[in-house]
């Protein structure tokens, strides 16, 4: 399984191989310059120790200076190329990932609705950008550098060269294996533990009022402390391993040098000994990043397999092969609709029926969790329906193009996302070509214009990340303005006024009734307020719609 993921992951890197190869070569050249600097310096000192004429040192003096400058130059170029490639890769990964999940949203992403989980997935995409720099390049550079060093040493003595190759190879292998086997496992446990602490913290902070009110403060804090201590214990294990790698780096680098020296002393001219020793030490720079490479690789593979799992799902809804034409009328008829989220999940709707002539103003009442939002999502084709019919002006909804279905319904949903941009742009998302006046008219109808106009930056105010800078009620009204701006035949308001005070709520209802003449309006609510304004009221319970009395709802049934 990891091999398959790895192959797929490397496939993603393929378009960038030129940049990566160039960066790897430059990286090898950087280390080669270090080796050259130490080797020529050592040779120069050794030669000078024999007190030759100054002319004999001339070349080596120039070489020392050349390598000194070259190292910096190569490093500079390597960083430029590597960063450029990484940014290109990241852009490509994001586009590919987005392209893959766009058809899946939101049905197949429902596991990720809590935002935090989705953030982790997005972090996975970001994590993959490092795969080249930290996981793929190091082994490449290590192999190339090892080869070059062996080639260099074989000019002095074959056995010395072989010793260097074997010792460096063993060190590289040992470092990698240790990191791969131990690091991966501890790293995984640590990641899990952190996620668990995260979940516990969210749970504890959100429920703080409850545990404090029940006098459980000490107990709860004690449980959290235990979790923190357990993370610390795992971090300690991880640190032990990290320390081991640091110690092994010292041991191996000098050990290889010592081995080269022992083999070389009886076999190589004394003048080259210092060169061999210092060149070996300098070359070890290529082995060092291997300690992290394995950890990065396993982390990248995990991120990748999570992403592939996500992207490999089949969309919940696909366009029909020969789509029906956009309907001319918009009477909504639901006939014997049966729906459950999956084949084995309990049915949310069982033979649900509804007839809504175009232009009606209707409300559907229901306790939270009873399926009101689901019904809206089925209508906008976020989910497919297996049994029953939904007809718009006589055309079966399933036979329409997805985007055409969404040109019929405009939904103000409970979980509307506000984008990190201005209020104006947030409203305009509903109709990108809408003039400013239309945006403001929609805001007026949603009773939010005055609030916006009162802000120092007015419509140009940034709402913050997912609308962090506006309150729940303001967010709802911005979302409502969006839905109103979009001039579709049918408007669905899902808990549109839940956060509003009664007076504002009343005003919103009145404007909707006024401005939406000629459109069908369907209100989903769990509150029994203001139902006097609507034409028809239904109650959703046990998977079916029960018509309640019109004009004045049946008080027996509703209270």
């Amino acid at each position: 399984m990891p091999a398959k993921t790895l192959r797929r992951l490397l496939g993603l890197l393929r378009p960038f191989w030129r940049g990566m190869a160039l960066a790897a070569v430059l990286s090898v050249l950087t280390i080669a310059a270090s080796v050259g600097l130490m080797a020529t310096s050592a040779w120069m000192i050794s030669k000078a120790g024999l007190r030759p004429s100054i002319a004999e040192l001339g070349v080596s003096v120039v070489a020392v200076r050349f390598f000194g400058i070259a190292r910096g130059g190569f490093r500079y170029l390597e960083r430029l190329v590597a960063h450029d490639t990484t940014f290109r890769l990241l852009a490509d990964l994001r586009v590919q990932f987005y392209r893959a999940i766009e058809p899946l949203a939101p049905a197949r992403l429902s596991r990720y609705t809590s935002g935090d989980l989705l953030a982790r997935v997005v972090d996975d995409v970001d994590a993959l950008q490092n795969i080249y720099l930290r996981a793929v390049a190091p082994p490449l550079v290590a192999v190339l550098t090892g080869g070059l060093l062996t080639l260099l040493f074989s000019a002095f003595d074959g056995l010395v060269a072989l010793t260097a190759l074997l010792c460096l190879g063993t060190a590289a292998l040992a470092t990698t294996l240790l990191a791969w086997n131990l690091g991966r496992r501890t790293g995984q446990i640590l990641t899990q533990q952190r996620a668990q602490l995260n979940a516990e913290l969210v749970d504890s902070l959100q429920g703080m009022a409850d545990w404090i009110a029940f006098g459980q403060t000490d107990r709860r804090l004690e449980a959290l402390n235990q979790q923190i201590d357990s993370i610390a214990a795992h971090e300690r294990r991880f640190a032990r391993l990290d320390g081991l790698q640091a110690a092994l780096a010292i041991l191996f680098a000098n050990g290889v040098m010592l081995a080269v020296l022992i083999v070389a002393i009886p076999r190589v001219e004394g003048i080259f000994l210092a060169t061999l020793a210092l060149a070996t030490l300098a070359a070890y720079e290529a082995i060092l990043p291997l300690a992290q490479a394995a950890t990065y690789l396993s982390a990248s593979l995990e991120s990748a397999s999570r992403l592939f799992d996500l992207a490999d799902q089949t969309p919940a809804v696909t366009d029909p092969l020969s789509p029906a034409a956009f309907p001319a009328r918009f009477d909504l008829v639901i006939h014997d609709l049966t729906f459950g989220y999956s084949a084995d999940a309990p049915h949310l709707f069982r033979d649900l029926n509804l007839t809504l002539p175009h232009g009606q103003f209707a409300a559907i009442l229901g306790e939270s969790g009873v399926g009101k939002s689901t019904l809206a999502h089925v209508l906008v084709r976020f989910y497919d329906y297996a049994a029953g019919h939904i007809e718009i002006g006589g055309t079966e909804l399933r036979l329409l193009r997805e985007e055409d279905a969404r040109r019929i319904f405009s939904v103000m949903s409970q979980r509307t996302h506000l984008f990190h941009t201005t209020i104006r742009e947030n409203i305009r998302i509903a109709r990108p070509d809408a003039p400013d006046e239309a945006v403001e008219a929609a805001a007026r109808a949603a009773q939010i214009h005055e609030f916006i106009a009162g802000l120092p930056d007015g419509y140009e105010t940034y709402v913050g990340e997912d609308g962090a800078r506006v309150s729940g009620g303001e967010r709802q009204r911005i979302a409502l303005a969006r839905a109103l701006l979009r001039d579709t035949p049918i408007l669905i308001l899902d808990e549109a006024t839940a956060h509003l005070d009664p007076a504002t709520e009343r005003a919103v209802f009145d404007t909707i009734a006024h401005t939406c003449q000629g459109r069908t309006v369907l209100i989903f609510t769990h509150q029994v307020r203001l139902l006097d304004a609507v034409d028809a009221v239904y109650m959703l319970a046990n998977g079916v719609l029960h018509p309640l009395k019109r004009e004045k709802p049946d008080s027996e049934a509703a209270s």
Partner: protein
Amino acid sequence: MRLTFMATIALSVTGGICLIAQAFALSRIIRQVFLDHAALEEVSGLLLIVGLLVTLRALLGWGAHRTASEVAIRVKADLRKRLLVHLAALGPTYLLGERTGELVTTATTGIDALDPFFRDYLPALFNALLIPLAILLVVFPLDALTFIILLITAPLIPAFMMLIGMAAGALARQQYARLSHLSAHFLDVTQGLATLKLFNRSRYQITTIAHISDDFRSATMRVLRVAFVSAFALEMLATLSVAIVAVEIGLRLLHGGIPFEQALFLLVIAPEFYQPLRTLGAKFHAGTEASAAAERLFAVLAMPLPPRPARAVPIPDRLHLRFDNVTYRYPDSARPAVDQLSFEIHPGEHVALVGESGSGKSTTAALLLRFLAPDSGQITVSGVDLAQAIADQWRTRIAWVSQSPHLFQTTIADNIRLGRPAAPLEDVMEAARLAEAHEFIQALPQGYDTPCGERGLRLSGGQAQRIAIARAFLTDAPLLVLDEMTAFLDPQTEAAVQSGLRRLLQGRTALVITHRLHTIMQMDRIIVLHAGRVVEEGTHSQLMNQAGRYRALVEVFDPVTHAG
């Protein structure tokens, strides 16, 4: 902790001394073989010493690494615990203003960001001071010229680093900030995918993402080209200094100005002299990143805590509650949420608290639960000032049924056990039965072992409230504080909740926040709040006859129930 940190420094410096000794031994070996033509056996003793020194260095390196990590691990665990204790002391009302997600980030990744500072940056800082100093001390008696070269070039490296930190580094940081901005944009679009799709705008984003990313790349590369030049200069300075030392001693060696063994030693030690300085340069931004994370953390820790009683007074058994001119203003609000509020509740009495939203009902409940402490005035229980009691002890006397009870990520049974964690299952079931929750729990496939919360079963509003009522039954506290739901419940659920509540009220003193006429009419007395003050008080019929605020409220709020 300080001791552990000092151990890190001691271990690193000892490692540095071993390194110097190793360089000495290595130079001697090469001199003996090269100039004195010694055989392998003759230098085997020295080779063994090098081997031992290497082993020792490895052990010391391991120790230094471990102790440095230990400091980081302990600091982090400590800060996490302090943060949680502080948050618990600040209470749930503080959390309403803060975003939970942000606080969790501070407690987890925010504190993790301190890790590189304690583990890498601080030790690197000390190493960069001490190890070059040790090398200088050894070099000085050996060769004055090299000593001077090292002494002059060494301060240039930190100086360069500071320049980088100020000029090019600032640019690079700006770019990195833009990078995280870009990640945030991508996350924003991904999280808003369903919304984009609703408006048929999701496919359009593909081109937008590609464009923004590419624009960012070319802008960043322009900046990085400059930023890397300074890193290049730094690298160059270190490498060229080694080259200068090499050439300088090489030339003097030629004229017999320095013995070979010493010259070789200097060559070996020169790169090691610059290494700690370069490491410090590489860890430099760990320091700045940590300070940004710490800022957020210490801002929370600096929030003042409500005062604690010096000497805890026990609370009398008789529950005669009195609010005496109690005033509380939220820190970011202009006017008090409750203003000179005075009322009392007699033992066994059921009192309804009504008023429009913002009139101070929830604040009153929060003050009674001691989530908040009054700015002025007093809350007393049979004459004992509540502020003088231990909050947790007082809370064991209260059964709190909130409007939106939180269901923890554990089983339904453990959720009911919240106030009495050791309660046997029979008691839990009995409480659930009294709360009319037993039936729907039994109908679940896993019954009382069904997991709740974010990843578990999502209960409907009516079910969640019945769990809260079961919690209250199980704790069996004499004072009931109830914040009734306003949500629509289907008739069966509504009836179940109401009968559970009626049973819970029996034999308890109660303060009930409600909008439902149905509930209000069962109360002994009604207190009407407006702008944080009591404006009307009496029974339903008394208040209806007054034609005041209460009557207006009843008519506006709940026309349907009112009609019934």
